[in-house]
């Protein structure tokens, strides 16, 4: 049982590592945010599940932390993304379309 908990913890830490790697590798702000939000959420969840498996009496607090992370993480990243967009951080060179600024190229074709 302890080993299962440890495996969960290592899986969680690997996702946290991937999030940090994504922060370094991704070319523009919004892509970094994609990596930094999703991977950290699941990473923390898995680590805390591992903790709860090893120490069953801590399940309540670990569950509360998981719930808190699930609700707060998307909210803060959404707030940051919106603030960045309104201050004029643009999409990277690879970007294909931006419907918040105007219609997409392929959108106009279909209309």
């Amino acid at each position, binding site marked *: 049982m302890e080993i299962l908990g440890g495996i969960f913890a290592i899986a969680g830490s690997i996702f946290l590592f991937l999030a940090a790697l994504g922060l370094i590798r991704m070319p523009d702000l919004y892509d*970094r945010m994609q990596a930094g939000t999703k991977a950290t959420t699941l990473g923390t969840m898995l680590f805390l599940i591992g903790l709860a498996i090893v120490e069953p009496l801590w399940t309540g607090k670990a569950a509360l932390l998981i719930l808190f992370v699930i609700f707060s993480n998307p909210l803060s990243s959404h*707030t*940051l993304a919106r603030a*960045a967009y309104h201050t004029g951080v643009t999409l990277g060179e690879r970007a294909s379309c931006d419907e918040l600024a105007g219609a997409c190229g392929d959108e106009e074709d279909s209309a």
Partner: protein
Amino acid sequence: MADLLFNIAAVIMMISLVLAMVRLLLGPTAADRAVALDAMTIIALSLIGWIAFMSGRVIYLDVALVYGLISFVGVVAIARYVERGV
């Protein structure tokens, strides 16, 4: 056995903390730095969980909860500041 696995996990988390720190120092705009800071606080939250496990005290999980609350409010405040100044 579980100790060893948790220690390996902690080492990986510390490496990722350093990587996120690099983005915090590099980040061209303030928003990039804020994203890196957000990721760092979540990683640190997990590390506090590790400290709780190693010391065997459940009280550290409460510390992690309060830390998460404060960092959430802090990131939202930074976002507000980036959007329209103080």
